[in-house]
């Protein structure tokens, strides 16, 4: 037995090294356990938020609730309420809870690739903070659900296009008519043939149009002559224009006379103004005269009063009673 033990590889300080390995092992395991507990939020003080949705498909326990791209909460539990709605119970760490306000909105977005995402939006940061245990509705946005509707709409559109481009469709008939019209336009009678309908009618129409043009030509010649006559009678040597010119000359002379009369009137007015100013001065002198007369009268009154006071036979106005 001893020989067998001695055959094992000799290790110096084996017990110390073994103890070191054991300590390292325990440290690694304990460290990993503590790190994982921390990573799963075991040491965080949290508050609860309940999100209500009609359908919680895509939500899994442990997924994040993000705000502006940052995870601020973690789904703890998903349960079915008595009303048949899904209750997503979210743990929000208290240090991050201030991002959630009473007016915050929560959405569940299911992308085409990857899992669903729970997002929070706080529009008004001054609103009161979200209370512990609050229940909020979860708005669900699902691009995947849009696909069947989109496909149905695309199918309708394609059906309409098919109907439009079908052989007996209205569009095809219109295009055939257009082709007929352009064919007629390109034909020997051109647009005239298009308007007249058949060939005979087109010929008649062309003849009538020719006649009409001749008549119009004659009419234009007559109109030309008429205009020549009118020109002569208006602008000729004995025309209306010459008379009008003479009248205007007379009117001009009349206006010159009127201007002279007005000038005379102006002189009269200047004189009248001078008379008026003289009168004003005279009125000012009258004011001074009046002042002088008033002072003279006041003096006379004073004199009379003095004489009355000094007069020996002044009438006694008092009645003395015995």
């Amino acid at each position, binding site marked *: 037995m001893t020989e067998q033990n001695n055959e*094992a*590889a*000799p290790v110096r300080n084996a*017990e110390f090294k*073994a103890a070191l390995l054991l300590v390292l*092992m325990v440290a*690694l395991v304990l460290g990993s356990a503590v790190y994982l507990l*921390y990573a*799963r939020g075991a040491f965080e003080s949290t508050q609860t938020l309940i999100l209500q949705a009609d359908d919680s498909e895509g939500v899994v326990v*442990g997924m994040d609730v993000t705000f502006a791209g940052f995870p601020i909460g973690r789904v703890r539990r998903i349960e079915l309420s008595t009303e048949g709605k899904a209750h997503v119970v979210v743990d929000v760490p208290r240090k991050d809870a201030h991002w959630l306000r009473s007016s915050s909105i929560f959405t569940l977005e299911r992308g085409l690739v990857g899992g669903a995402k729970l997002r929070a939006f706080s529009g008004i940061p001054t609103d009161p903070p979200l209370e512990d245990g609050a229940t909020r509705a979860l708005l669900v946005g699902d691009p995947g659900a849009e696909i069947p509707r989109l496909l149905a709409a695309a199918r309708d559109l394609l059906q309409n296009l098919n109907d439009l481009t079908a052989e007996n469709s209205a569009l095809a008939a219109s295009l055939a008519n257009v082709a007929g019209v352009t064919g007629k336009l390109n034909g020997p009678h051109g647009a005239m043939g298009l308007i007249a309908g058949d060939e005979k009618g087109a010929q008649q129409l062309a003849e009538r149009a020719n006649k009409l043009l001749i008549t119009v030509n004659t009419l234009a010649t007559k109109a030309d002559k008429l205009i020549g006559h009118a020109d002569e009678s208006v602008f000729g040597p004995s025309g209306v224009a010459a008379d009008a010119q003479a009248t205007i000359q007379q009117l001009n002379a009349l206006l010159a006379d009127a201007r002279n009369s007005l000038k005379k009137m102006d002189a009269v007015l200047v004189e009248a103004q001078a008379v008026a100013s003289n009168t004003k001065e005279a009125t000012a002198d009258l004011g001074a005269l009046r002042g002088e007369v008033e002072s003279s009268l006041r003096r006379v009154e004073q004199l009379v009063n003095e004489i009355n006071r000094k007069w020996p036979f002044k009438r006694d106005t008092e009645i003395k009673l015995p």
Partner: protein
Amino acid sequence: MNTQASIPGVLERLQQGVAAWLNSWWRLLHFAVLMFSLALTPSSYGRENRPVLARHLVADTAPNLAWYGVLSALVSLVLIRIVVVTSQSYGLSRFALEMVVRVLVLELIPLTAAAFVALRTTLPAGLELAQRRHAAGTASGDELHREFFPRVAAGIFAVWMLAAVSCVLTLILAYLSLYGFTPWALTGYTRVVGQVFNPAVTLILVLKIVFFSFAVGLIPMATSNRISHGLADMVRVFGVMLLIEIASLMGNYY
């Protein structure tokens, strides 16, 4: 006639084979129970047994730890790089970290650690012990104490140690490969790691490593008290490891 005569022969051989197979598993179970009872006995760690145990522990773990640490770090770096570059080219880089953690830490590292310990330590040790005990019959109690138990304990411990060190190393390498030498991504990284390691996944990982270590430590030693050429032990070890891996995959993803 010939066919009729051969059918009982085949059945007899089949019966013998099944009996031998069941017998070997029974012996393995018996050996495992003996080892567990020794592991729970304080005297196994007593003053007289401690030097042998410590020597085996260090001799089985330290060289493996160094080699396996280097190899697993290199392979992890290559795999992480492949996953990151591929996910970036498809615009799915936010899923890269989760995939790295799931593929490497949860699946590959424990499996390769156990295989490494089995190939480099426990299978050769079991073979060597079997050859040495060529003529001996059933192992005595003292032999179990002094020969078998230290080797089994060292094998089990080596798997734990290698798996723990490599998992932590790979997590660190994944962080450095994805984000570089910056501490600012640690919060997001921690969150993703926390999401991956939910209680069920963590429990399955721990159980997987523990059962791998039992398979790697016990099976080669259990058969070493009889004539063995080693190959059968290796097949059995890897068969059991495969079963444990399948069970863990089913537990994780079904």
